[in-house]
């Protein structure tokens, strides 16, 4: 069993001895977000598949460095295949609405437990990009991947929680019915469904008002309900389209708390927003879009003292 630090070769890292000689790990060094994701993974807060549940994997800080114990080569290949795929990836996504090109070769990547903000003026393509990544729209060029699988496949969409810009809940259904509906459509049944629905509603602090219809909710409560609907199936990726628009300070703080908690559990967040406070609180990176093209992708300046995360 291999132990120790890998040698960095370009943007690739290899684990000498850990894997059969013809296998390499091919992901780029991460910033501290990668470390948080790895720690969450190591602590069992993020589990992808049986191999991850059975084995303990401890990983590093800053650059990729895995210490593998008690894993066979096959386990590692399986584990690596699962874990090293980007939680969310857009590869050269382009989209036309008729003659108008609304997205131009957009590429972004997001690791588990990482947060990225999409910034840009209205009409810059943020919502379209989120819809493409959620599998709501089909790209004219490029691919949208979740966990390495194209989001046009149902399997990929199982891991995605999407919170559209409008409330996107059924007004004439209660909170419980709304969340249960989306849980069922994600394939949850029986006790699992009940537990997940309750957990989502408790997480968003709507459990006490679970039987009230959504049309009786305030704007902030509807946002939380919308988030609960997206969280019910424990997604690996959350796509949020302006989640803080039209919510009061209390609801905003609560939404931030829920999203932060999700991040701690290893959920990757991609949100479009105009509010820089939320970007600073939730995201390690931001991507600036203008006229459908990526102008810049940068790290959010970190202030560890202010950071709510480990």
């Amino acid at each position: 069993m291999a132990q120790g630090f890998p040698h960095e070769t370009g943007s690739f890292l290899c684990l000498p001895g850990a894997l059969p000689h013809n296998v390499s790990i091919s992901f780029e060094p991460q910033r501290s977000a990668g470390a948080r994701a790895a720690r969450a993974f190591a602590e069992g807060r993020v589990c992808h598949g049986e191999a991850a549940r059975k084995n303990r994997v401890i990983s590093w800080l800053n650059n990729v460095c895995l210490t593998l114990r008690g894993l066979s080569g096959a386990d590692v290949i399986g584990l690596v295949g699962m874990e090293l795929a980007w939680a969310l990836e857009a590869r050269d996504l382009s989209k036309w609405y008729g003659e108008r090109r609304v997205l131009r070769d957009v590429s972004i990547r997001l690791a588990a437990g990482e947060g990225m903000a999409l910034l840009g003026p209205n009409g810059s393509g943020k919502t379209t990009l989120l819809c493409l990544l959620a599998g709501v729209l089909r790209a004219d060029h490029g691919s949208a991947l979740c966990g390495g699988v194209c989001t046009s496949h149902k399997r990929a969409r199982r891991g995605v929680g999407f919170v559209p810009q409008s409330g996107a809940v059924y007004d004439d259904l209660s909170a419980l019915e709304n969340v249960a509906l989306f849980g069922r459509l994600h394939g949850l049944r029986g006790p699992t469904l009940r537990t997940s629905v309750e957990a989502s509603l408790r997480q968003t602090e709507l459990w006490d008002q679970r039987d009230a219809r959504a049309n009786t909710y305030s704007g902030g409560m509807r946002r939380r309900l919308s988030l609960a609907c997206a969280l019910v199936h424990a997604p690996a990726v959350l796509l949020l389209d302006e989640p803080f628009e039209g919510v009061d300070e209390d609801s905003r703080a609560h939404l931030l708390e829920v999203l932060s908690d999700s991040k701690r559990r290893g959920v990757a967040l991609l949100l479009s927003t105009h509010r820089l406070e939320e970007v600073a609180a939730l995201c390690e990176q931001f991507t600036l879009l203008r006229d459908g093209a990526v102008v810049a992708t940068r790290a959010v300046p970190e202030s560890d003292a202010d950071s709510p995360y480990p």
Partner: protein
Amino acid sequence: MSAIVTIALKDLRLVLRDHAGLFWIAAFPILFALFLGAVLERWSSRDDLALTVGLADLDRSPEARNYVARLMAAGTLTVHESGLDAARASLQHGDIDAVVVLQKGFGAVPDWYAGTAEVMHVEADPSRRREAGYVKGLLLEAGLSRAIEDELMSDPRSAVKVVQAASLHATPSAAELVTPAAVLWGLIGCAAAFAISLASEKRAGTLRRLRSLPISDWQILTGKALACFSACLAIAVAILAGALLGFGVRLESALGLAMAVVALTFCFTGIMAAISTMGSSEQAVAGAGWGSLLVLGMIGGIMVPRMIMPSWLVSLGGLSPVRWGLVALEHSLWRGGSALDWLLPCVWLVMMGLCGLCGGAMVLRRSAA
């Protein structure tokens, strides 16, 4: 499959909680049936259905007065006697159906009914020549009746006898005439109400959320179609049960009726699926839905009687599922006939439903691109 059922149950629950929508689905067809039933009841009894004419007697001879009195006593026409100008003004205002003018010299030709001279004329709207012809027949009948009473001639009306059609076991009652139309109105209301659900989902953003789930567009549309199918079926069964049990409507073929109801329901579900993708707003879809469904109803014969339609419109009615639905329901309820009489319309209805479903699915799929 479970995703389809889940979406269908959700849509049914939403419709049940939307009281305005529920009115169009459940209450409207029943109200319409009662209204249409009352109209047809009056039509079939024919007591107060006489055409109204204004009569201007320019002759004023005793024979003319005697004829007017006989005409009024017959009761086949409602006669308002007045001056010629006043009668023409009434016709222009639409208060009467025709003006009957007894010309000068009427009394001098006692056997006018034999066609010896022109003694009267009927003034009518050119678009109502059919009614004018009916009035002409009744005027002649009133003249003939005197000659028959005076035994100047035998009754020529005995040469023609009106009997019950051999293919019909009994004259259809008003309820029997109305029931197929009521079922079709129920289905039209139901399809129109469900058609806007997709547009509502677009407006609320829930369609985007549904599309982000691990289900296909086909499953979303099929779920909605299943909800519409279930509601349409329930409405049709409720109306038919009320008609059969409450109003004693005959049932010639239970199998035919079952097939007709299922085929009609499927057809309107397909139409709903096609209409639901016709616009992006609820207003656009509602307008397109009611507009197209009312046109189908109109040319199909549940709004305007086919007998007053021009021949090209009657031919066009063959494209309407309403027409085929009427045929299938009437044959299975009270017209009787062979199985082909209701089977062929059913096949046609299912084909139209399939076209609607496929068209709707294609448009919805294209909208994702």
